[in-house]
């Protein structure tokens, strides 16, 4: 038992941090929100070169994966830097395609995700994130059946490559562009294999969303700590007031207990651990966002100040790929005991 990131895993995180710090992500995010993807695409190709997406793709399809621990480590950094784009969706799509019984779609589509030629997005029913930036737009229809599988629904399940999308609807996080996918498109797979593959994909989606949320929360805490150390009122730094300190201590506690859940879930990949990580990391990030906003005062309430980029993402990630309620239900399971007690 050595439950700590290895030297290589830490070096990987550090290299991503260096890359992202140099990329000036706040301006990339703002452009992305306005629909200008130039900077975002450049960043995407650098992340691809760093191997981020290959981690979700099995070696048989030119990837290096699946490596959930490294994915989790990477997504913490992506969240920390508020990187925009269908990040979670691309690794989710990769997992979905690789998990189909029929290898055809994976052989055709996955190498382009590994090389960075394509980005992907996935929708189950609702919206597809950043569908205008993704060349591979997957739509899963039929069973919303992870909770109560049922034969008839499973055999009706379909995976389609959706046509080009229409106009986006705004999300609370301006950097997340939500597109309804038009009906139709090429049928890639059908039947129970789609349901099973989606279950795998949902695990990766939740894990990487949790990791991303943890990174968002850590960034919010860091920025707020820096702010309260330099902002003075009543002649002293506001960070010396106990009412301020204690809110930040609570944020620190919440995030530090979310971190091992995220890494532990990446190791075990059980649905319960992943759901536990998702609900905890997202709630911690969201609570930290509320604290960050409060402690910044009015400046935190402006779209001009960069803090907003993380604030709105913390809210959006909370419900992406499984609301707190759904995740808690997954933790409780169908009466089966989690392995760990």
């Amino acid at each position, binding site marked *: *038992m*050595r439950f700590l990131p290895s030297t290589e895993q830490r070096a990987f995180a550090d290299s991503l941090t260096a890359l992202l710090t140099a990329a000036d992500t706040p301006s990339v995010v703002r452009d992305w929100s306005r629909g200008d993807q130039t900077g975002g695409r450049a960043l995407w190709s650098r992340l691809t070169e760093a191997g981020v997406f290959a981690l979700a793709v099995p070696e048989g399809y030119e990837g290096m994966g699946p490596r959930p621990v490294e994915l989790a480590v990477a997504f913490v950094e992506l969240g920390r830097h508020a990187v925009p784009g269908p990040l979670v969706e691309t690794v989710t799509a990769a997992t979905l395609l690789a998990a189909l019984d029929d290898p055809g779609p994976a052989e055709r589509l996955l190498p382009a995700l590994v090389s960075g030629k394509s980005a992907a997005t996935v929708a189950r029913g609702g919206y597809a994130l950043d569908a205008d930036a993704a060349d591979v737009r997957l739509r899963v229809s039929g069973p919303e059946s992870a909770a109560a599988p049922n034969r008839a629904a499973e055999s009706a399940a379909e995976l389609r490559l959706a046509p080009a999308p229409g106009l986006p609807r705004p999300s609370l996080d301006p950097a997340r562009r939500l597109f309804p996918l038009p009906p139709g498109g090429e049928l890639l797979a059908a039947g129970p294999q789609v349901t099973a593959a989606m279950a795998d994909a949902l695990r990766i989606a939740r894990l990487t969303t949790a990791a991303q949320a943890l990174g968002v929360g850590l960034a919010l805490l860091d920025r707020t700590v820096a702010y309260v150390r330099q902002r003075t009122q009543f002649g002293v730094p506001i960070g010396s007031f106990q009412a301020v300190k*204690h809110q930040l201590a609570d944020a620190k506690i919440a995030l*530090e*207990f979310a971190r*091992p859940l995220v*890494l532990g879930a990446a190791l075990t990949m059980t649905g319960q651990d992943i759901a536990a990580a998702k609900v905890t990391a997202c709630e911690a990030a969201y609570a930290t966002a509320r604290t960050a906003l409060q402690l910044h005062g009015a400046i935190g309430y402006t779209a001009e100040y960069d803090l907003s980029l993380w604030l709105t993402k913390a809210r959006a990630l909370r419900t992406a790929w499984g609301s707190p309620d759904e995740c808690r239900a997954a933790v409780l399971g169908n009466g089966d*005991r989690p392995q760990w*007690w």
Partner: protein
Amino acid sequence: MDLAFTQEEEAFRAEARTWLNAHVPSTPLPSLETEEGFAAHRAWEAELAADRWSVVDWPAVYGGRDAGLVRWLLFEEEYYAAGAPGRVGQNGVSLLAPTLFDHGTEDQRARVLPPMATGEVVWAQAWSEPEAGSDLASLRSRAVRTAGGWLLSGQKTWSSRAAFADRAFGLFRSDPQPAKPHQGLTYVMFDLRAPGVTVRPIRRLDGRPAFAELFLDEVFVPDEDVIGEPGQGWRVAMSTAGNERGLTLRSPGRFLAGAGRLCALWRAQGSPDAVRHRVADALIGARAYQLFTYAAASRHLDGAVLGPESSLNKVFWSEYDIALTETALDILDAADEPADTEWAERYVFALAGPIYAGTNEIQRDIIAERLLGLPKGRR
């Protein structure tokens, strides 16, 4: 990075499980906060010690198994999963013993540890005073030099289990006019039945005499019962406090088992929807604490010294314990049943968690100042 245990560790876990299954009393012992319960729990400590399960991480010479931190954690998981009794010796085992390992002499360890391991000598912690709670360094009880030792006078309070315990360890002011309050303190061990000691039990919320106040009138302590250098008591005490908040006082096993029992209670009552979230959060919290502790143990095994991070644990487990036991009481109340006594006792004890071992306000200050680097403010 992995969560796998070695074959030896798994074998150790299995051995502990087998032993516990064969030995854990089938009916719960009476509360250890009563005279009768205290005696029953002492006997249980002796039974554990006879097969060297009472202090598994200690060196074998003192009655342990040299099991190390990871196996201690596994033992604790098995211990609580088996529903084994509360530990009457825990003040000594989790506070005084680590202090002796760090600051004691060989002679002190040889004298103090073996009878602690068997429950023959049960220890109480004598730190707090009526005027010195959070501001512990303001304590006023005195240690005055005398031939071959010290004379203790003053008043201590809130001393857990002192009503029935044998000996106590605590801090006394040996320099009445130090430059700073943290200086001139001396850390000593003394006998609760020595001449000059009066113990007055204090009844806590549920009426049980779970703690006591101590009145000391020129109580003699020989030099060999001073831990560390006279006047250096604060440094010694702070190493105790780290243990109290950190890994050893509240192991994850306790909460894993508690969450499991809560979940079973919830299902037995028909899985009421009203508390569904809280039951899920209890499971999640136990898992989070387990994994957090595994990470801390891994860092410790890599040679890291666990410092102010232990304040994160302390706030977490103390708040978690209240949420867990409150949820159980709500389920029992809603089922129109009298609160089950075991849960009620746990709940009452949990309520004190944010107060003892350094209040959570003090812990949040430590987290803010020492982990986040925020400026010190007015205390």
